[in-house]
């Protein structure tokens, strides 16, 4: 029992998902287990039946190769041989499993050993009419055998051609209900055999006769080249009755086809004894045979017609329609045709039929096999279908959705013709359809179910699809839809979808634009005071779609946007609802690429700026800022390109960016900036001598006298600082390079925007830096970062960046912190360009004196002096100066006097050094006008001198 449940579970797990099941255990192992269990005497037969279902349903999963299939089939046949006859159901399932295994691999088509054996087995059972048990077990087995043979013949047409006479005989002698199974088999083999003859050049009446007469030798001789038809030849597998445009292979036999006629008559005579399903199949096969052999008149089928035309069975009437399709007026009179069409109309609305059947009959009306077909196109009305006749099929609100739509479709086609015939006149039918649409709309308005809502929009689409050109209705529909929308804003996605679809399908009509224009009007003209948040959400969706239309002016949209975000009228901005903000941005985004952008520029920029400054959600602020920047910095063409690229690459659908699904998907993908896991790139400090003479060109036109006296020098120098921007910035140079592990996604980066944040208040806020691109393969770009110190202290900057990858996605990444050292804040003395060495020395003296006196006089002053000593050899000192002080050196390096060094630190601090070699040590006399710098100077001097000591000791 445990085993049984286990197997039931395993088999059902396999059927649910063979791929997953097989990935867990190998198909080989599972097959081996199945076969072992099938052979196991202890297993119950009900379980064994279950075990066969994987082989029946997924033979190719379990038997991936022909050899495995061959072995499996032989194995199953041996199980069959050993199974007692009383387990009839299991034996039947075994035959089905072998059939499936052999057909689905190519064993049958290659006439493998196992398939030959199997065919022999089947034929043997099919002829065994001695039901020795008398309990029907052999009866059901023979029924299954016939179906296995039929399926083998169906999959390998021609396989049983040589057995045609045998099968005919078996069919005729069978008096139990099994004759149906033989009839089905016989008909199919006959049909395939005749088809094969049509493919033989020169085949004719004699071959046909030989085939039917069992003189297979003759028939086969003619046939031997083709043999079993290749399964790849789809034509023989196809139905041969394909409507007016299909061509049929024919067998020229002359009128002498007595044998065939007698077989056909016998089959037709007994067709009444078959179940409707088998009868329909048989009639269809015989229709094909008669159609292929012009020597047999279709009138042969006439005796069955009246019975068939009155039938309540859908498949029998369908078979009759296919007969009409094949034989047209050679079997069906004009009255028959009119009758059949009326029947179809009646059946399409018959109270006793189920919905799928009625829909099928309506489909048959639209593909009615006319005796004299005019065209073979899709969905054409039969000539005989008058508006009066079709009026039985007008849609009503009591119909289920599918029926209603099918009827609307049919009737639209009918009235479309009428409109064309009676132009200018009121067409009542059309008026009715429009009224129907209005009734549906009322139901939607009164809270109809989701199904009704969807049906209404589908109806509207169908109506427009056919009758959009009838302006009276299409215009009125726009008004009604707008009214509906105002009361039910949640219908926005449906309306947008309707606009999209009508635009796609009715390219010559501007109905969709008209609808959108009107929607824009009702949204923007409605009083803002009554607007709920939910309404607003949908309004923005609609306005975003409206903004897709280049020909619709967007001023009112902008007015609306500006109306809802101005703080006085609403608290929307403060609320900071992300979704709402996103919806607003979606509108703005489309406006950015709108053809009339030039006229929208200022209000749009205002809105974006407002959002970027006041919206209560940083993400929305950032996006707004991004758009604002794009809008104000990029040219029109570039803007369009950037955004269009994003729209196509970002979303999966390359369709119009108006589909709500795609919109939200794209919004999250495009507008939500993705976060990188780790740093993608970094800024590496570049030591540059460019700083040295940076300030030298500050006042190139100034022709001043060069002061040669300390006080005047200080005066002239200090005067420069009256300009607050004078020498107020330091510029650091960095190289932007990829960092970390290689990830090809980030190999090529675009539109990088670097943003810096301060960690203290010693510096003014930094502006962002834009870098057009960064490719791993190309040289790293050099960036200049300008810092404006308030106090010239060392600092650390946080850096982050937003950039775009090649696939159009935006990313946010954090860069490693940037440390600004004390010495990086040093600038050479910003003296006027014309000043020579002497003047600078004068200034040095002046400053030194000033500082010394100030620091002495007043302890509260900023000035301070200090002394730093260290042990350095002569050469080491020279090297030190050369390496660290050269840009700041005021005295000559060669001089034996004290070395004079002056660091200028923006905005207006100075550190003066007088370096003197004493016997025991080197003395650094320090004077500064910003005593707080002393705490940084000492460590700095310590660092640089100790490094010199190391190298020179």
């Amino acid at each position: 029992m445990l085993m049984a449940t286990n197997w039931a579970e395993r088999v059902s797990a396999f059927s649910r998902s063979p791929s997953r099941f097989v990935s867990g255990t190998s198909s080989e192992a599972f097959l081996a287990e199945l076969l072992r269990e099938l052979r196991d005497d202890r297993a119950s037969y009900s379980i064994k039946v279950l075990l066969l279902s994987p082989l029946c349903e997924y033979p190719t999963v379990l038997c991936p190769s022909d050899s495995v299939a061959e072995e499996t089939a032989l194995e199953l046949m041996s199980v069959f041989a050993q199974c007692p006859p009383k387990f009839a159901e299991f034996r039947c399932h075994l035959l089905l499993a072998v059939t499936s295994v052999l057909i689905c691999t190519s064993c049958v088509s290659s006439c493998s050993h196992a398939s030959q054996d199997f065919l022999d087995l089947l034929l043997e059972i099919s002829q065994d009419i001695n039901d020795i048990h008398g309990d029907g077990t052999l009866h059901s087995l023979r029924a299954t055998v016939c179906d296995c043979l039929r399926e083998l013949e169906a999959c390998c047409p021609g396989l049983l051609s040589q057995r045609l006479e045998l099968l005919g005989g078996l069919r005729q002698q069978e008096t139990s209900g099994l004759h149906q199974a033989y009839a089905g088999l016989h008909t199919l083999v006959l049909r395939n055999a005749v088809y094969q003859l049509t493919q033989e050049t020169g085949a004719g009446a004699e071959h046909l006769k030989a085939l039917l007469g069992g003189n297979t030798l003759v028939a086969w001789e003619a046939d031997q080249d083709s043999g079993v038809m290749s399964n790849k030849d789809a034509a023989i597998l196809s139905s041969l009755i394909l409507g007016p445009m299909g061509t049929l292979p024919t067998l020229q036999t002359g009128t002498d086809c007595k044998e065939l006629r007698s077989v056909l008559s016998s089959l037709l005579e007994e067709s009444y004894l078959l179940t409707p399903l088998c009868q329909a199949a048989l009639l269809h096969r015989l229709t094909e045979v008669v159609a292929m052999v012009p020597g047999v008149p279709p009138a042969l089928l006439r005796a069955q017609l009246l019975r068939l035309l009155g039938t309540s069975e859908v498949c029998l009437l369908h078979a009759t329609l296919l007969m009409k399709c094949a034989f047209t007026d050679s079997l069906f009179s004009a009255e028959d045709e009119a009758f059949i069409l009326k029947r179809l109309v009646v059946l399409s609305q018959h109270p006793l039929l189920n919905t799928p059947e009625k829909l099928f009959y309506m489909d048959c009306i639209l593909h009615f096999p006319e005796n004299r077909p005019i065209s073979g196109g899709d969905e054409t009305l039969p000539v005989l279908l008058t508006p009066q006749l079709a009026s039985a099929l007008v849609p009503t609100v009591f119909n289920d959705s599918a029926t209603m739509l099918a009827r609307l479709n049919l009737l639209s086609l009918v009235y479309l013709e009428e409109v064309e015939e009676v132009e200018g006149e009121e067409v009542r039918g059309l008026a009715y359809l429009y009224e129907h649409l209005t009734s549906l709309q009322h139901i939607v308005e009164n809270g109809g179910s989701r199904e009704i809502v969807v049906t209404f929009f589908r109806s509207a689409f169908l109506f427009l699809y056919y009758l959009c050109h009838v302006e009276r209705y299409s215009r009125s529909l726009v008004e009604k839809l707008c009214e509906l929308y105002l009361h039910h804003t949640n219908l926005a996605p449906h309306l947008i979808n309707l606009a999209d679809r009508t635009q796609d399908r009715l390219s010559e009509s501007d109905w969709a634009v008209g609808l959108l224009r009107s929607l824009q009007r009702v949204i923007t003209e409605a009083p803002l005071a009554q607007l709920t948040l939910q309404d607003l959400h949908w309004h923005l969706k609609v306005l975003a779609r409206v903004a897709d239309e280049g020909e619709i002016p967007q001023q009112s949209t902008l007015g609306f946007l500006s109306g809802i975000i101005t703080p006085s009228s609403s608290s929307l901005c403060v609320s900071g609802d992300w979704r709402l903000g996103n919806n607003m941005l979606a509108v703005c985004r489309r406006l950015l690429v709108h053809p009339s952008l030039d006229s929208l520029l200022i209000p749009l920029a205002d809105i974006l700026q407002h959002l970027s400054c006041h919206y209560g959600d940083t993400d929305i602020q950032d996006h707004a800022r991004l758009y604002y920047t794009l809008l104000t910095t990029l040219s029109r063409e570039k803007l369009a390109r950037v955004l269009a690229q994003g729209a196509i690459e970002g979303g999966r659908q390359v369709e119009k960016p108006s589909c709500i699904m795609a919109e939200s998907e794209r919004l999250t993908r495009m507008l939500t900036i993705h976060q990188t896991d780790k740093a993608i790139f970094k800024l590496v400090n570049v030591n540059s001598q460019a700083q040295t003479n940076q300030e030298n060109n500050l006042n190139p036109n100034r022709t001043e006298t060069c002061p040669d006296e300390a006080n005047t020098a200080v005066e002239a120098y200090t005067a420069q600082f009256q300009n607050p921007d004078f020498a107020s910035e330091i510029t650091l140079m960095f190289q932007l390079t990829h960092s970390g592990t290689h990830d090809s996604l980030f190999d090529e980066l675009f539109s990088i925007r670097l943003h810096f944040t301060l960690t203290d208040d010693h510096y003014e806020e930094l502006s962002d830096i834009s870098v057009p691109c960064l490719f791993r393969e190309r040289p790293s770009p050099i960036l200049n970062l300008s810092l404006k110190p308030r106090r010239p202290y060392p600092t650390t900057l946080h850096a982050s960046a937003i950039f775009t990858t090649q696939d159009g996605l935006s990313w946010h990444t954090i860069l490693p912190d940037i440390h600004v050292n004390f010495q990086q804040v040093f600038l050479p003395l910003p003296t006027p360009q014309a000043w020579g060495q002497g003047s600078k020395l004068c200034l040095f003296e002046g400053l030194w004196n000033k500082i010394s006196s100030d620091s002495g006089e007043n302890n509260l002053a900023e000035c301070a002096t200090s002394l730093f000593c260290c042990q350095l050899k002569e050469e080491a000192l020279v090297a030190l100066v050369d390496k660290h002080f050269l840009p700041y050196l005021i005295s000559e390096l060669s001089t034996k006097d004290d070395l004079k060094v002056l660091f200028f630190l923006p905005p207006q601090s100075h550190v003066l050094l007088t370096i003197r070699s004493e016997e025991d040590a080197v003395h650094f006399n320090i004077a500064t006008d910003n005593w707080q710098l002393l705490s940084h100077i000492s460590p700095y001097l310590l660092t640089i001198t100790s490094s010199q000591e190391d190298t020179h000791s």
Partner: protein
Amino acid sequence: MSVRAVWIISHEKGENVSIRFSRRFSTVEHRAKGLAGPSYVAVPEENTVLRLLLTELGLSDSDKSYVALRDDCFYRQRSPALELHVDGPGKGILWPVLAISQGPLILACLPLVDAPPEPRPPLANLLSVSQGLTLLAGLQTFLLGSGTKPDSEGLASRLATLPSVLLKVCPLGTPLDVPLLGAPATPTVPTPAGNQKQPAWKTGLHRGRAVVNVALIETVRSMQYGNQSRQDLWDVYGTVTCKCEVEGVLPNVMVTLTLPPNGSPLQDILVHPCVTSLDSSILSASSVDNCDGSAFSGPYKFPFSPPLEPFRLCSYTSQVPVPPILGSYKLKEEEKQLHVSVTLKLHESVKNSFEYCEAHLPFFNRDQMGIADVKVSSGQLDVSKEKNLLVWSLGQKFPKSREVTMEGNIYFFGPSPGPTDPLCTDLTAYIKLYFKVPDMTLSGCCVDQHSVQVYSSAKPRIVASRELHSKEYYIWNSTGTAPVSSGQMML
């Protein structure tokens, strides 16, 4: 003429969905691959099929008001064949998927397209489509019976028998028959005397006394508007159901339907496939035709050889000159109350002897009923305040005058809102009549038991009955707008 797969799915209004049974026919799939060539789309695994099918049927994501894949206005749900848009590796469109939905069950199958795949052939060219529809309808009847309320245990046990049922009716994907209703009859193996072949649709032979039971049921539908501008509508259709216990392999039986002298011809006659032959005049009258006074009006003879189980021998429609009950419904809105005035008249041609006759007056989109101060001239009135429903039981007979009235006021001030309906807003309201009249038909059609002929040795017992039912019998309030139910009369 085969199907590639069959699925049976149960659900509760789109929730708790599961595939209860599925069967793939691998050899048909093999043919499908050969026929479709490069445009072949394999049948995906169960879960995928389930998801796609529910989307297509509009049952997925029932909590979302709009889902593009499900609700796109362009999708052609008007066809009986659905498209499943398979994504992922086996990308493509699976077509034509047929589905029948009834109560908690969805039955679906995928017929084989035995025609060149491009351009897509019309459904009408594929015999496998009508075969698939027949198979599904047969499975549906087998699983749910003809009743509307299936019991879950019965359903489960019938689902469990499907493997052996399919072994008989569709072993390799080619439907041979529909499953037999009820317990499968013990397979009696006939030993027919002589050469008469046994019909494949007959599972055995009857032995014993011959009994033929013929039941004629007519159903009347009506939409009455009580309005000058809109014509009242009614129609009648009848079915003749037989149960024949007659000996012999292929016994002959003939049932004759007759009409009274001035009866209007039976139209749209559909017959069971066991009917052996038909006179063309029987089929000539059609409801969509202009009525022709000279049309054939019987007797309608149906020669047939019966199957063992009960079956519907034929059905017809009829155009009768008057509705059996003519009603008038007037509502007047006055502040918080609604003035109701109803008159029902039984036509003199209708037998005044009902099995039951009830008029239901529902009120929608209002507060719950407070007081219903309503008087009826005959019968009994039940007021269901929670449902905002008046049920007027007229009993077995109308009074001698054949006219009954209802008059009064209803006040709606209950504590909570009553039931809603998107169609019946404002004064749009209806009365729905439920009645059954034994031993009569509106068309006058009848099966005379003496006219039933059984060509067999033993003298048969013949039972014939007839009755009239109402269905969708509406009387709309004439002071409100009423929905159009058929354009036929207006155009």
